[in-house]
């Protein structure tokens, strides 16, 4: 029984493909409390989406499975070994999810109102059709869609991208879930719409006591929205901490690189945008040593041999890097944005 709303320990998720087993998530642990917002940041393919989908065992069509030994504890329930009935209850009522692409995440042949009310009616069998539709209208109002009474009967293709994403948000919060997972909610939207959607999410965050998990590769939106940040790479967490710790005192070279990649007005390198050399490792092979070794400017021979253990820098700040070792050279974080 954990004191956290959500506790994840040693989560490992793999896919079986015709070429072998792909280890997408390799031992990830974290926790989440009510009212908190956790951001999981990393490049595409680092395993962040797989991690959060595993929280609801939402594999979709893929041949994914959670490895034995993983623990996902939500309000005292063991998610990993849930049967389909319990899982059904968890999804929507316990945890809700907002997906990345609003253009394809809504069924084109059902009205928007129906899709919102669907979840409501499933989790509350006693509610009537009209009452559910009423609730859908209220939710549409809550997410800032004008003339909700009209919109509720419209089809997804009659709404713009930004509005569709709001509908997705409405669907996610429809059944009063305790945790809302936002999987790259703004990636597929224009910048101006991004800002609106983020504002909406912030609004919801303040009004309710829900916990949020924000998955993104865009550090730019993380600071305003999240309380804590964890950086993932090749299926493992390299560093995590509160947002202040991560932005003011990052310890891992990957975090430095990520922060450096955010273009800003104060950028020192006027001209070329900074990008990290190389590509993420092949997840089909077991990785020896630190997964970031090949691309790290500060790589040392030991980095390629063994995986560094996690070091606790504060109650909330941990990092896994050989640079922390007493025998390693003392490297100061390079100056980054906001540090001129």
């Amino acid at each position, binding site marked *: 029984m954990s004191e956290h709303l959500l506790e994840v*320990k*040693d989560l490992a998720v793999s896919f079986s493909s*015709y070429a072998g087993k792909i280890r997408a998530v390799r*031992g990830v*642990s974290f926790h989440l409390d009510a009212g908190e917002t956790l951001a999981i940041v990393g490049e595409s393919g680092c395993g962040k989406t797989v991690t959060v989908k595993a929280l609801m065992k939402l594999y979709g069509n893929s041949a994914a499975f959670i490895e034995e030994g993983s623990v996902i504890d939500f309000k005292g329930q063991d998610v990993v070994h849930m049967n389909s009935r319990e899982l059904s209850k968890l999804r929507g009522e316990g945890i809700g999810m907002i997906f990345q692409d609003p253009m394809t995440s809504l069924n084109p042949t059902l009205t928007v109102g129906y899709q919102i009310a669907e979840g409501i009616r499933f989790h509350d069998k006693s509610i009537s059709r009209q009452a559910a539709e009423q609730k859908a209208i209220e939710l549409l109002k809550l997410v800032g869609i004008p003339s909700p009474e009209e919109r509720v009967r419209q089809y997804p293709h009659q709404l713009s991208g930004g509005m569709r994403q709001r509908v997705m948000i409405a669907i996610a919060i429809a059944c009063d879930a305790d945790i809302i997972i936002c999987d790259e909610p703004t990636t597929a939207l224009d910048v101006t719409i991004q800002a609106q959607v983020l504002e909406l999410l912030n609004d919801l965050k303040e009004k309710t006591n829900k916990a949020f998990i924000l998955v993104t590769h865009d550090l730019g939106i993380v600071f305003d929205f999240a309380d804590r940040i964890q950086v993932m790479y090749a299926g493992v967490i390299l560093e995590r901490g509160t947002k202040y710790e991560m932005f003011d005192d990052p310890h891992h070279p990957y975090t430095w690189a990520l922060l450096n990649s955010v273009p800003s007005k104060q950028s020192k390198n006027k001209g070329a945008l900074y990008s990290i*050399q*190389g*590509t993420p490792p*092949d997840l089909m092979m077991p990785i020896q040593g630190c997964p970031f*070794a*090949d*691309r*790290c*400017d*500060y*790589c*040392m*021979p*030991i980095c390629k*041999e063994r995986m560094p*253990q*996690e*070091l*606790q820098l504060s109650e909330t700040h*941990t990092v*896994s890097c*050989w640079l*922390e*070792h*007493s*025998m*390693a*050279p003392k490297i100061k974080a390079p100056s980054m944005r906001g540090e001129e």
Partner: protein
Amino acid sequence: MSPMNSDWVNNTEGLTPEMFKTVGVDTTKDRVLRPHISYWQDAWRRFRKNKLAVFGLILLIFLTVMVIFGPIIAPHPHQDTNIKESYHPIDSEYWFGADKLGRDYFARVWQGGRVSIFIGITGALICAVIGCIYGGVASYFGGRIDTFMMRIVEILSSIPYLLVVILLSMWMDAKGVKTLLLAMTLTGWTGIARLVRSQMITLRNSDYVLAARLLGVRPMKIVTSHLIPNTIGIIIVNITFRVPSLIFSEAFLSFLGLGIQAPDTSWGALCSAAQTVFTFKPYLMFFPAICIALTMLAFTLMGDGLRDALDPRQRK
């Protein structure tokens, strides 16, 4: 991994200073992860992995070989009638037995196969050529010409093709391979014309073509490097599915008496002739029927395999 305290940070057991020398990024490792393969190589590789498709291909090769060499290696020429040997049973002399007129059925079946497969493949190719040209022209011009051309296609598609075939065979009054081919291709090209046109339009509006144009690539080069390779896949799959459909139609028409006439033969004609004596001499129907079924099976399996293999979205 649960966070530990700073013990490991100070644990120097088995560690040397060399291990902690800054080395930086290993640039030698920045090579491309997977070897470069072209679209066609990748498609072939995927095709090969599909056991059913490969089976279809092997089956097809087998049938082709038999159809070419069958009549040659047969003990008796296919057109030689020999009334004395009428309905000769299957044995070492007459491998498939003999038909009503004493002709070697083995030779006849494979001879008929030549005609059937020829019609199938030729018909499909002709349809493909006409369809490509028509669709390409329509999409190239766009606008009213395109609309007009497509209206014609729509009206032609509304005509039940059976009707066309029947009318044409009546009209030409010759019921042979040529008539059959003409009848089947006269309206058969509409499907592929539509496919080609819609694919061309999609491609033309696609981002990478736009990029090519912006980069100043000459129109002809765009056509050959971008438009055609991306359309060929679809065309090939369409042809592969058309062939069995045409063979089937030929069989059907011959069965109705509108197709190949004696003394020429095709699998359909053989089945048709065998139908009346089916209860007594079932083998006369079985052999050509099995050949038709096998051919259709082969093309269908291959078609499925090709379609999966040539789908660029499934590239790994």
